[in-house]
């Protein structure tokens, strides 16, 4: 009986190590219980699913919003890159793409929208105005970059950046979330 048990355990640990290697986790982890195995496998599963389905929320303020609309439309398609469904409500989205210049009057609304998003949440500063204030750098009503208010993950430069730039930025964000990107 015990040898069957030991064989089964060896077989199981061999299978577990093989699958751990496949998902990119370190193989020298000691597993004592089945719950640990499922937790490790599922955290890889959860990261994989979060990484590959990043839903942006509509936060177009100004000119860069035109490029966001182009990003979702037929020629440069957002859906083929898994950035499906621009959500109008922040409670169902992962990424807030801040597109356009930020004025002092709209800061409370931005903060409220950011707090309504569920963790893990990310922010992409799209365009020069959200990165650093843009051409309105010296104006009396402009915040010089959204990173004075919110923590930003990826910056995209351009005025306005082409939608292909946004694709590259969201791929970088996916790498940041979960490690390697296939394809």
């Amino acid at each position, binding site marked *: 009986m015990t040898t069957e048990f030991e064989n089964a355990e060896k077989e199981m640990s061999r299978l577990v190590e093989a699958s751990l290697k496949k998902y990119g986790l370190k193989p020298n982890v000691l597993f004592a219980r089945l719950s640990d195995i499922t937790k490790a496998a599922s955290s890889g599963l959860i990261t994989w699913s979060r990484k590959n389905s990043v839903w942006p929320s509509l*936060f177009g303020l100004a000119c860069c919003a035109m490029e966001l609309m182009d990003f979702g*439309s037929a020629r440069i398609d957002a859906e083929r890159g898994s950035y499906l469904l621009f959500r109008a409500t922040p409670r169902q989205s992962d990424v807030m793409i801040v597109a356009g210049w930020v004025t002092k009057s709209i800061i409370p609304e931005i903060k409220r929208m950011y707090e309504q998003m569920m963790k893990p949440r990310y922010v992409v500063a799209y365009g020069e105005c959200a990165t650093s204030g843009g051409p309105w750098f010296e104006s009396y009503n402009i915040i010089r970059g959204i990173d004075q208010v919110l923590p930003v993950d990826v910056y995209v430069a351009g005025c306005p950046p082409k939608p292909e730039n946004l694709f590259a930025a969201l791929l970088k964000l996916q790498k940041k979330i979960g490690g390697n990107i296939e394809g």
Partner: protein
Amino acid sequence: MGQALQGDGLTTKINVGPIHPSTHGVLRLVVELDGDEIVNVEPHIGFLHRGVEKLMETRNYMQDLPYVEKLDYVAPEAYSEAYISAVESALGVEVKERAQYLRVVLLELQRIASHLLWLGTFLNDLGHFFTVFMWAFADRDKILRLLQEHAGARMFYVNMRLGGLNRDVPPGFEEEVLSVLGDIEKRIPMYESYLEKNEIFMERTKGIGAISSHRAIELGVTGPVLRASGVNFDIRSSKSYYVYDKLNFKPQVVSSGDVFARYKVRMLEMKESIRLVREAIRHMPPGDAVGMPIRLIIPAPKNKEVRVYRETPRGELLIYMVAGQQGPYRVSFRSPSFINLAALPEIAKGAHYADLFAILGSLDLVIPDVDR
């Protein structure tokens, strides 16, 4: 359908917040309702104010050109052309003849692109989820690619110079323009038959938000909103500029004054613009179209006060400029969206709450132009 609550006198206030899924920009409406009937609408603006008029006083003429383009980002070519005309009037520079025809071609292409974007977002506001949006954006992308061939950028083309353009069109441009116009001309009847045979669209737009021509003049509205109420006024025919009079331009006027009339005026304007571009390409003379390159030292201005009237896709734009030595001393923009938004409380009084968004969409507002 639907009666307002009677006799109570109590009203509800609803906040349509600054961030909402429509794509005009950041606008806050405080709507006061009596049952389902709108008693008053108060637009709160100012969330996108950057002080453009003050910033432009600190720079010189050529550095101000990108500032002007970012005022109305749906039709930036119209605004940059108006500003360059103002500087040309101040300095006394004439526009070359081939450049005049080319400017008309670029302006009318921009008008078609702007009306296509309006069509897509208007139907999104009505609740039609992204079908016409996708079709209209595919058409608009063809035009943007044409403009990109000449100017180099998709959205903010800084391609106007004093007396002409920054460069002539590349070879083969005219054939491409004609082929794109042929494609779009086949699609416009598709949009019209798709929408006008649809009962829901007709019920949501016919008879909603109607204003008479007398009321429209009183409220000071401009552009397609004015022409949809039966007033025959278009800057391109009254104060004709460039070669519009040679191309036999006719303003498109519809007389019912409701949301459907504003939609119809814009579709008719698209067809008229296609005809204008074809005529301009046929009559364009060969020659030189390149204007003055960008210089930092320019001659002193001849005229101190300049006024330029232009017809942008949204309405009438007036640039009043007091010219200084190197840059403007004071620039004042009369943006069409400002006064159209100011007329919204009067147009929407007495309508149902769901009609408010149809009316708001039909006015074609761009909010950064409202609070520059």
